[in-house]
């Protein structure tokens, strides 16, 4: 499906580096680009889409040459068969959900796919809303549906699930897996969340300072056991829906945000924690 060697200068917070990546991606693969920020994940994704121009190398998609430095070939993004989901969703604010999807279709194409996509992503009820009237998760689903409208062969996702809460994230991961199979896609996902990589990808490419550090099955990554589901007891309720809890596994304490679901949480209650519901904080004194 994709065969490329792309070179481009990176200007990351860690200082200048060169992105130099040589890879082949098979049709139907679900690839995660993983690594710390500044590793070049988003840059690589933008190079594949044609949103950023490489400095040297080549990029072939099947029989088509999208970029070749030596032959001076450059195919602009509008002529590549891709779907791109942006980190900020990039929905068109002047169009409703339905209009965003319809706009994505080529002029002559049958509009029948629009209701199909709305159903696939569970957006039927929101078809006539504007993006500003949607939640983050809903906007994300519109962005996914819109990226699929042209029936691309390649789906590129730039940290699409970074800004949504845990239940929405699970729901979206399901929608993504479903779309990947339903549309026979080759999917490349930028992520820095190992749990997400494990849940979705069948191949992970770890980048660091512009180079491939590891390439293989997601089991290469640290398994998210250390942050898997665990039990904890509430030690103290704090203002702003926060609570200090003691983990059953090792007795360490954590600061978590309680779900805002109206349940009367109290000290002494046993909770079940899932990875994205809490964040780690430094150890505290024994009074807690």
């Amino acid at each position, binding site marked *: 499906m994709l065969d490329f060697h792309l070179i481009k200068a990176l200007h990351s917070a860690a200082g200048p580096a060169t992105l130099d990546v040589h890879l082949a991606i098979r049709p139907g693969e679900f690839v995660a680009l993983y690594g710390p920020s500044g590793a070049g994940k988003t840059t690589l994704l933008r190079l594949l*889409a044609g949103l950023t121009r490489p400095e040297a190398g080549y990029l072939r998609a099947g029989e088509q040459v999208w970029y070749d430095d030596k032959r001076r070939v450059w195919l602009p*993004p509008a002529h590549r068969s891709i779907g*791109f989901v942006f980190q900020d969703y990039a929905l*068109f604010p002047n169009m409703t959900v339905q209009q965003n999807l319809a*706009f994505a279709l080529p002029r002559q194409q049958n509009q029948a796919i629009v209701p199909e996509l709305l159903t696939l992503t569970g957006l039927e009820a929101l078809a006539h809303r504007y993006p500003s009237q949607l939640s983050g998760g809903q906007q994300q689903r519109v962005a996914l549906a*819109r990226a699929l*409208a042209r029936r691309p062969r390649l789906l590129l996702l730039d940290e699409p699930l970074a800004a949504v809460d845990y239940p929405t994230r699970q729901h979206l991961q399901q929608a993504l897996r479903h779309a990947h199979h339903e549309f026979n896609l080759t999917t490349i996902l930028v992520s820095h969340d190992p749990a997400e990589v494990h849940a979705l990808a069948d191949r992970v490419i770890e980048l660091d300072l512009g180079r491939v550090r590891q390439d293989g099955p997601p089991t290469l990554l640290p398994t998210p056991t250390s942050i898997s589901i665990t039990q904890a007891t509430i030690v103290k309720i704090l203002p702003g829906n926060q609570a200090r809890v003691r983990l059953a596994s090792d007795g360490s304490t954590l600061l978590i945000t309680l779900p805002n679901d109206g349940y009367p949480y109290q000290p002494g209650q046993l909770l079940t924690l899932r990875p994205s519901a809490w964040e780690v904080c430094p150890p505290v004194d024994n009074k807690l």
Partner: protein
Amino acid sequence: MQDYWQTLALTLRLATLTTLLLLGIGTALAYWLAYTRSRIKPLAEVLVGLPLVLPPTVLGFYLLLAFSPDTGLGRFLQHTLGLRLNFTFTGILIGSLLYSLPFMVQPLQAGFERLPPSLAEAAATLGKSRLTTLWRVLLPNCKPALLSGIVLTFAHTIGEFGVVLMIGGNIAGQTRVASIAIYDAVESQHYAQANAYSLVLVGLALLLLLLLSWLTKRRSNYSA
């Protein structure tokens, strides 16, 4: 009396034509300035902004010279294109276009630059041409900038004096716009006549400013 209405009609015709033409020219120029990486961009921005600081009479003076048959450009315009621009409506229209250019270009350029770059990029990944993207995505999402560009250009052209006087003079039905008619009336001590023009211009200015503040206050997704 007929002269009065003729002058007001001419003023409105000049302002309307200037605004319509600048809507096209200004949009293209603002789009280019907002997205180009060309090295001449700073120079282009300075040239667009020049009429803001240049005395109108200076602009008018050089246009007068340029249009006159004594210069190469003037000879070319007159003999090759058959265009006589000094002391004609077409001449003051061209003067107005240059003079009001920054009032259309600057708000629009700022409007384009305020939009998240991902909007145009998303349209590109959806296979849309630049023109389609401009027309369907960029312009609809900078409506407040577009509207303030239109209102400012129109108002500014109505109030124009120096440029028109230099290249147009004061020919009834051809180049005599309201602001020149006021000056002319005061010169010949027809204060009532000057007042009649002035009141209309004050009313128009108030109306346009009200319209502008109403339009920019209305909720919009990306307005600042």
